[in-house]
């Protein structure tokens, strides 16, 4: 029996729509523009706010210096590892700049620079990577969630926090950051879906830097762009040039405004490039060519802004020097902070596992205490 022969099959049956079904929304307004949104080097740059752009410039220069210093600290063995954001500074800085004090940032492991740009002490931001503790700051004090190493798992947290804040009537927006690889994870899907269903005040910022460690975007997704994924959840997707800080600031600000005013979540794909390797443990020459890297260097976020501002007479040599000096001062403070040996108490291992220590942990703590005392005694006897 073929399908056509089945009882009930036929044109009349197929032409009758199910009773209540209709599309929930018009998909067109949610679709991203085909080209990444740009401001620098376009007529839109006429409306730049000079003061804001000078601040952006200083932050970008500081961010680049931070990346360089952190990478140097890795080579000196001060950091176990550092995932660089050279080339991605505009995304990191803009994400931090568009948030109000009461808002929350949910960074991934690569987003220490965004945390620093939000005002977190650079040394505290690096404790995870230095290895003296996982999270070196009080998330509530700074409204920065702990840097998340498992991919995309912090996105549902952002949704839950924003939802809770809205239930309490608080004016809070959560901005969650994830990479292109992270969009393949189940938690990305679940977070996007929850946010849209709950109309939570969340902004998802996807930094498409071209590679998930070594795997290029083409092997990561078959979607036309990552921003297109937003449509399937019923939220707007925005495609933006991640190296253009003016465009990033504008698009992120609009999404934050939308979230704040009850308009629900937005997903933004920032098209950028990871100039350096994934971390110092990665050999990027195995999976990409120099020509590609050089082409992206020609689209450097700092150069883009510097060219625009100098051409318009909004930035001069003195301004550039002032930004560099401030960046050097930050780098020196970071070096000093990282060169000071962290104070480590091994007994901290047993603290904060539970509100009240279990009998088992008390036993194990006593064992370590005894080992430490014996070692100290031995050291004392030896000298």
């Amino acid at each position, binding site marked *: 029996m073929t399908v056509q022969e089945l009882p009930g099959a036929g044109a009349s049956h197929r032409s009758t729509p199910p009773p209540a079904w209709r599309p929930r929304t018009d998909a067109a307004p949610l679709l991203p523009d085909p080209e990444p949104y740009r401001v620098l080097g376009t007529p839109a740059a006429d409306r730049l706010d000079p003061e804001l752009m000078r601040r952006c410039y200083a932050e970008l220069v500081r961010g680049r210096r931070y990346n360089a210093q952190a990478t140097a600290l890795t080579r000196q063995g001060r950091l176990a590892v550092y995932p660089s954001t050279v080339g991605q500074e505009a995304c990191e800085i803009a994400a931090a700049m568009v948030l109000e004090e009461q808002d929350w940032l949910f960074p991934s492991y690569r987003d220490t620079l965004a945390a620093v740009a939000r005002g977190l002490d650079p040394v505290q931001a690096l404790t995870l990577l230095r290895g003296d503790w996982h999270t070196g700051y009080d998330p509530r004090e700074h409204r920065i969630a*702990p840097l998340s190493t498992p991919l995309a798992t912090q996105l549902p947290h952002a949704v839950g926090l924003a939802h809770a804040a809205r239930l309490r009537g608080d004016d809070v927006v959560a901005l969650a950051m994830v990479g292109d690889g992270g969009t393949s994870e189940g938690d990305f899907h*679940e977070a996007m879906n929850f946010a849209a269903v709950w109309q939570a005040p969340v902004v998802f910022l996807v930094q498409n830097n071209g590679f998930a460690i070594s795997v290029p975007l083409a092997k990561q997704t078959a979607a036309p762009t990552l921003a297109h994924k937003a449509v399937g959840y019923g939220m707007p997707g925005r495609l933006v040039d991640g190296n253009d800080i003016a465009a990033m600031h504008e698009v992120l600000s609009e999404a934050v405004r939308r979230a704040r005013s009850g308009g629900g979540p937005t997903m933004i794909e920032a098209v950028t490039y990871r100039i350096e390797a994934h971390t110092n443990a990665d050999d990027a020459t195995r999976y990409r060519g120099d020509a590609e890297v050089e082409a992206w260097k020609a689209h450097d976020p700092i150069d883009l802004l510097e060219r625009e501002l100098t051409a318009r007479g909004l930035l001069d040599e003195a301004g550039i020097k002032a930004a560099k000096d401030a960046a050097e001062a930050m780098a020196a403070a970071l070096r000093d902070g990282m060169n000071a040996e962290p104070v480590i108490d091994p007994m901290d291992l047993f603290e904060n596992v539970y509100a009240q220590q*279990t009998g*088992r942990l008390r036993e194990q703590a006593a064992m370590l205490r005894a080992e430490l005392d014996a070692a100290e005694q031995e050291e004392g006897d030896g000298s």
Partner: protein
Amino acid sequence: MTTVAVKPATTKPATMAQALNRAMRDAMAEDPTVHVMGEDVGALGGVFRITDGLAKEFGEDRCTDTPLAEAGILGAAVGMAMYGLRPVVEMQFDAFAYPAFEQLISHVAKMRNRTRGAMPLPITIRVPYGGGIGGVEHHCDSSEAYYVATPGLTVVTPATVEDAYGLLRASIASDDPVIFLEPKRLYWSKSDWSPEAPAAVPGIGEALVRRTGTSATLITYGPSLPVCMEAAEAAREEGWDLEVVDLRSLVPFDEETVVASVRRTGRAVVVHESGGFGGPGAEIAARITERCFHHLEAPVLRVTGFDIPYPPPMLEKYHLPGVDRILDTVARLQWEN
């Protein structure tokens, strides 16, 4: 250890399901930060009706039907707890919780620790668990070994109507994440417990001697408690006077109550539904051996589910520890080298 005072309830909970429902209602009424969430918990009242009426009484913002996504449910609960709420999450069935394991292991269990105490997560995760209800595949797992192996999680499981109420109140009041394992085959067990009568309920981490005896100790929890009580009665005919310890809390583990009992009786059998290899019974047997070696008249034995994937409904009676298997094992305690 915390002890939660029981507020006299106006209606008498006749079943464990009703006691659990009452516990959530009372917690929600007393504390506006308590939020219940999960798949089907709203209008339907949960597939087991444990959340029956909560959405109607407290509104959909306090008892929320979420999208069908366990990682999303638990992940969102993490964010809600970060903002100061006390989410009570329902995982519908034991095996449905597995998609949420990354959130559970990597974030829920660790947040207090990784933030050095700055950000505790007071989340209660309700997991109906265990077999004996004729459920099809993926509806009858005993997953407690996974939970107890994860530092940072508190793991409790009631076996009586009274404890269902008390332990759930204590779990919701806890500042740490709690895995609250609900023995689903006891949901409809009845009790003459009256909420007006008891003044206090167990604190987390307190085991209870349910039956005193002198010949040997049965150590158990959750769905296996009634089986052990029945076995203890049956054993009298064979001359065995069995003591029964209900752990109630797997983490923290009340070692003192267990050790004191085994030192009195000199013999011990651990009974649970989950598999034996790497199961909670292995840990308990090891601890008893470490602390009671000179008091033991026989090796510590275990009666557990087989080390197999949970069997289909028509075969589960062969798998689950029953009275006969417990009695046969107790007989083996007559240790004569």
